[in-house]
């Protein structure tokens, strides 16, 4: 049991507990804020798994923009945000069963696929920015350039849906 394993277990626990609070929280804003904790803990797990750049993507994009967008989306609707705003429908038991079954199935597949894998965290450097930069700008040139088109289309879409005025 190394220090890394202990930190990994602790991060995992934080992620699990906060994820549980996301779905059980009574107020929708609290759920969104607990999501920040979950995503942060997952970012920590990425660092421990030597996926350095992905961890920073997680922090900047998910904890940063995605949660901001989520909160903005809550503000833009007329949804109440006070206590009881996250009250769920009668489908909660069904959703619990589906989510539980999915977790077990995916977990079993992952366990069967990677059960015996050992990562030496002092040796592996697969996820550094340099390594990924090499991959993005060489092997994945075309998907990378097409990604800019996705961003462009998304922004055009946002303007189309929201812009008033006569220009």
């Amino acid at each position, binding site marked *: 049991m190394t220090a890394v394993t202990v930190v990994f277990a602790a991060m995992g626990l934080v992620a699990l507990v906060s994820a549980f609070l996301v779905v059980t929280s009574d107020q929708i804003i609290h759920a969104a804020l607990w999501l920040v904790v979950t995503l942060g803990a997952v970012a920590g797990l990425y660092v421990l798994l030597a996926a350095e750049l992905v961890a920073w993507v997680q922090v900047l994009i998910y904890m940063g923009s995605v949660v901001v967008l989520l909160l903005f989306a809550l503000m833009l609707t007329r949804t109440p945000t006070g206590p009881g705003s996250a009250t769920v429908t009668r489908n909660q038991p069904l959703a619990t069963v589906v989510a539980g079954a999915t977790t077990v*199935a*995916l977990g*079993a*597949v*992952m366990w*069967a*696929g*990677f059960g015996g894998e050992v990562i*030496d965290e002092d*040796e*592996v*450097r*697969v996820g*550094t920015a*340099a*390594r990924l930069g*090499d991959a993005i*700008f*060489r*092997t*994945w*040139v*075309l*998907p990378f350039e*097409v*990604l800019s*088109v*996705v961003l*462009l*289309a*998304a922004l*055009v*879409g946002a*303007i*189309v*849906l*929201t*812009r*008033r005025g*006569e*220009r």
Partner: protein
Amino acid sequence: MSAVSVQAIVGAAPSPIEAPDVDYATISPLLIILGAAVLGVLVEAFVPRAYRFVTQIAVAVVGVVAAFVATVVVGAGLDTVDGEVTGRGGPTAMGSLSVDGPAVVTWAMLLFFGLLGVLLFAERRLDGGLSAFTSQASTPPGSADERHATRLRIEHSEVFPLAMFALGGMMFFASANDLLGMFVALEVLSLPLYLMCGLARRRRLLSQEAAMKYFLLGAFSSAFFLYGIAMVYGYAGSFGLAEISTAVSSQIGGQNLLLAGMALILVGLLFKVAAVPFHAWTPDVYQGAPTPVTAFMAAGTKAAAFVAMLRIFFVAFGGARWDWAPAVWAIAIITMLFGAIASIAQTDVKRMLAYSSIAHAGFLLVGMAGLTSGDGVTSVSAVLFYLVAYGAAAIGAFAVVTLVRDAGGETTHLGRWAGLGKESPVLAVAFTIFLLSFAGIPLTGGFISKWSVFAAAWDGGAWPLVVVGVVASALALFFYIRVVVLLFFAPPQGDGPTVAVPSPLTWSVVAITVAVTIVLGVLPGPLLDLVQQAGAFVR
């Protein structure tokens, strides 16, 4: 990538990495379309409002035609590859794209659908000089702001660049040679379509509901697809279809990961092609979306997603075909039967065409399940032919839907179409030809395409599917005949349907699609030769 070689890259002194090898001429059709899309956005930014709509049409049409010419040039120059099965062309752009025979044929097909789509988008004579798209999407439906925007003739000419984005995504999707590129392409093609579905001028709430449903379910299915990609990567250690194929053949790693990954990828793709039980969005979205968008989407998305599905499952998972083929069999059977039976109960023309589109997904799956390759009718060539014939007839049928109108816009209730044969015989005959093609009656493209997918399936030993397919066709035929009788022999309700007089844009779409449907039925030889010469996928 082992730990040692990674260390070597990071630890080594800076040494320049050689430039990636991209053959721009070969991928030029894709680049032209994406370039036209970006240019369209710049037109939105700089051209004054009065000239914007016309400029956008010009940019889109020139872009599509130029890309089509480039596709023909690329297709003519493909080298023949001799392997187990004959193919043409091969991977380019660092292995991201496989510009092979099927890819080039699909590009040409998509560009053809794209051109027809742009012509329908550009139609402004049907609704008193206004396009089929809402004046301003941000105004609440029925509000004074909306009327003000309509009076000022504000228009969303952004639909043209958005359609070009979707078209580029479809072309990328059909030719991507690795799963990562496929996912990016899936997003490029889906995002603009979600958006355009919500922009109808008439019945805006229905249109917005359709966009919302399509977006939520589409995002969900993309997540399935992505999770499947992650699992297959875990299994094979690569995104490349060739590398996955090698891993599948040598049976390395845990088979559970592969099975789960294949299943999730299949779910994501079956959603896009609207196969049962992943079809629930189709009727609502086809009904709610602006009809020109429905036409473009019905033909284009189905073509791109089917070619991508064949490419993934034939190239990457070909070695595991006995694992996935039973699932495709089962889904083909329920899709054909459900599509045929459910369309009988429809009273709305657009929903009827949506269920017909579901049934056609089932017939296409029959062609896929045949798994035949070699000379003669292969699964790939049969599916490609089917996609051309179905796409042309679908665009034509939706083009006819845009013309039958009343005071509230298009009238899509089937009962209101009674007596169309007296009101506009030409239009009724055109619609009848499309319906007969959907039903697979001889002398239409639909007959040859059904025959070729059934032949491919029969050769591959999938004869039970052929039997079910024939039964489903007979069921559907009953319904289509009923609609034809309604068009020509039923007494009109009230004043009967009104047929708007369109500009040459919509007329030419109807004329071209009728011509294609009949030529493919009477003289299918040239296209059959073309799709057979396209050969197999090259990885």
